[in-house]
């Protein structure tokens, strides 16, 4: 359960805030001890904000956002009080004992009581703090143990001959009551190796279905057994969805179930009036990309090091680097011509991408553009996959300093593989501001159509680790072209 609170800088808020944080932490999967530690960390941070960011102001406001994720809980605090640099406030125990100087004590506790703590100075936008705590997960072990006992054998050729005819399978939109069947289906197909681990948790699946965050299709045999599952995960900040979580039970393969489910999903996307759907297809083999292209998806971007390297079932050795993915996009329904402002460096490639998608655009070169007073920049960190996404919503005169500070904070405090950066292509300032970004070590990733607030974005990427691009397989001709462009830039930069 995600929560956003606006908090006053009055010390009286500390008690109720601690009560809430503790209860929220418990109800979102932390143990009592973890919840206590996390609550103390929040208490320390809020106390520091009240004392040092807003001295003598008990009526100011700041925001706290509570985010429940699969493997951790995260709290993001944003405030626009007095400038502050945590690195200048290091706790010194000798000074504490000899002089009673406890400066930095709170920050030491925050760092010890959180698994991740990130401080970002956003200039005129204020400061942002990210605190996260890992959950101790038991349910997955129980589920996997149960599934292990029930795991069926791979089908024998003789069984395939006795196969149930394709037309006898039924396809229905999933409901919360299908959650357990989906989790079992994922286990039986992928073992432990499926990258989206929330699919091993029936309760998590149920929550997303109840909350309508997910539109899925389930295929059942004539006896009602779950045979396949495929879903669209709706994006929260735009009217598009990501297709994924594709699975067909080993017993029912080679009967066109996957194709039928994809057809149903496209129909579901149309009936739900989504503007488009996309798939993030892995590039260690071409199978998923082939399926996407069969249904009209077009490759628009290549995201290097998108998820951690796990052992994929069917591959004997561990893939030696984080997994890169291509974005395959399918517009749904007619699209209106739109004006876009493309950085000259990528203009040709972006226009080719639009052509691939059959989206009409009018590229324009802005003459002079006035920047907003302050930038609006969103940062999302995925601690599991060691990646961050920065989305530029608005350029302000402080754009360079805020972005530079964000990158510095991420570089110094986190051990990330990659940072992605989305620049709005329908914003006339983008060509000019791109020149700033280019100098910061970002290279091309591709087009992210309609990715935020129904607007198109240029996705860039900054690699923090070395990657071997020879291990990346792009299926389509255009995907290969995008990969080549990225490869050239990558080798030029390294």
């Amino acid at each position, binding site marked *: 359960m995600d929560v956003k609170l606006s908090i006053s800088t009055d010390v009286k808020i*500390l008690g109720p805030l601690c009560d809430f944080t503790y209860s929220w932490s418990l109800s979102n999967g932390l143990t009592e001890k973890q919840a206590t530690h996390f609550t103390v960390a929040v*208490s*320390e941070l809020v106390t520091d904000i009240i*004392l040092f960011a807003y001295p003598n102001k008990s009526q100011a406001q700041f925001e706290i956002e509570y985010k429940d994720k699969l493997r951790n809980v995260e709290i993001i605090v944003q405030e626009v009080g007095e400038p502050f640099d945590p690195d200048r406030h290091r706790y010194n*125990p000798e000074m*504490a004992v000899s002089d009673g100087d406890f400066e930095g004590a709170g920050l030491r506790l925050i760092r010890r009581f959180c698994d991740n703590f990130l401080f970002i100075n956003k200039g005129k936008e204020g400061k942002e703090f990210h605190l996260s705590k890992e959950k101790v997960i038991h349910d997955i072990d129980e589920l996997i143990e149960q599934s292990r006992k029930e795991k069926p054998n791979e089908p024998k050729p003789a069984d395939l001959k006795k196969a149930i005819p394709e037309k006898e399978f039924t396809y229905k939109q999933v409901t919360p009551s299908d959650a357990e069947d989906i989790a079992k289906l994922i286990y039986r197909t992928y073992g432990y190796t499926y990258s989206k681990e929330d699919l091993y948790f029936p309760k998590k699946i149920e929550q997303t279905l109840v909350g309508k965050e997910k539109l899925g299709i389930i295929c059942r045999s004539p006896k009602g057994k779950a045979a396949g599952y495929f879903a669209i995960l709706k994006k929260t900040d735009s009217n598009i969805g990501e297709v994924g979580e594709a699975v067909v039970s080993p017993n029912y393969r080679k009967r066109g179930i996957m194709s039928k489910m994809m057809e149903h999903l496209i129909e579901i996307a149309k009936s739900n009036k989504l503007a488009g759907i996309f798939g993030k297809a892995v590039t260690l083999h071409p199978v998923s990309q082939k399926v996407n292209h069969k249904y009209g998806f077009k490759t628009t971007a290549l995201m290097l090091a998108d998820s951690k390297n796990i052992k994929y079932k069917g591959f004997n050795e561990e893939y030696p680097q984080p997994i890169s993915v291509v974005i395959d996009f399918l517009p749904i329904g007619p699209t209106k011509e739109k004006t876009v402002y493309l950085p000259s460096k990528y203009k040709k490639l972006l226009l080719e991408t639009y052509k691939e998608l059959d989206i009409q655009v009018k590229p324009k070169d802005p003459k002079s553009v006035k920047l907003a007073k302050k930038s609006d920049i969103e940062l999302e960190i995925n601690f599991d996959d060691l990646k961050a996404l920065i989305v530029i919503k608005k350029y302000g005169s402080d754009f360079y300093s805020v972005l530079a500070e964000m990158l510095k904070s991420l570089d110094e405090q986190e051990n990330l593989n990659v940072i992605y950066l989305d620049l709005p292509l329908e914003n006339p300032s983008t060509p000019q501001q791109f020149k700033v970004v280019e100098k910061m070590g970002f290279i091309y990733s591709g087009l992210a159509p309609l990715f935020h607030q129904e607007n198109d974005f240029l996705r860039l990427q900054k690699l923090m680790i070395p990657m071997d691009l020879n291990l990346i397989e792009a299926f389509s001709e255009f995907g290969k072209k995008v990969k080549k462009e990225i490869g050239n830039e990558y080798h030029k930069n390294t």
Partner: protein
Amino acid sequence: MNTTKIHKNNTALEIALSKSFNLHIKEVIESRISSEIDTIHMDFTNCHILDSEAVIFMYKWQKAGNKLMLQNPPEILFNIITILELDEDWNLHYIKSKE
């Protein structure tokens, strides 16, 4: 609502803390300390969250030559004392009547 109870008994303050002990509670306690107070009894039986403001307040109180007696302090207190490396320097007096 925080319902920490503070009672003055001659030269001692007897404090029954509620759920959390933080900057706000510290300020409330400080406002009740008059010149004749030399002892603080703190009952943590219902308190399971405390932060560095609470710990520093108690440490400084005792270091100033005053008496401090704690009842049922939670584990987090000892965690914080260890993290702030005060454990060797601070002889904390406490009793535990519950586990």
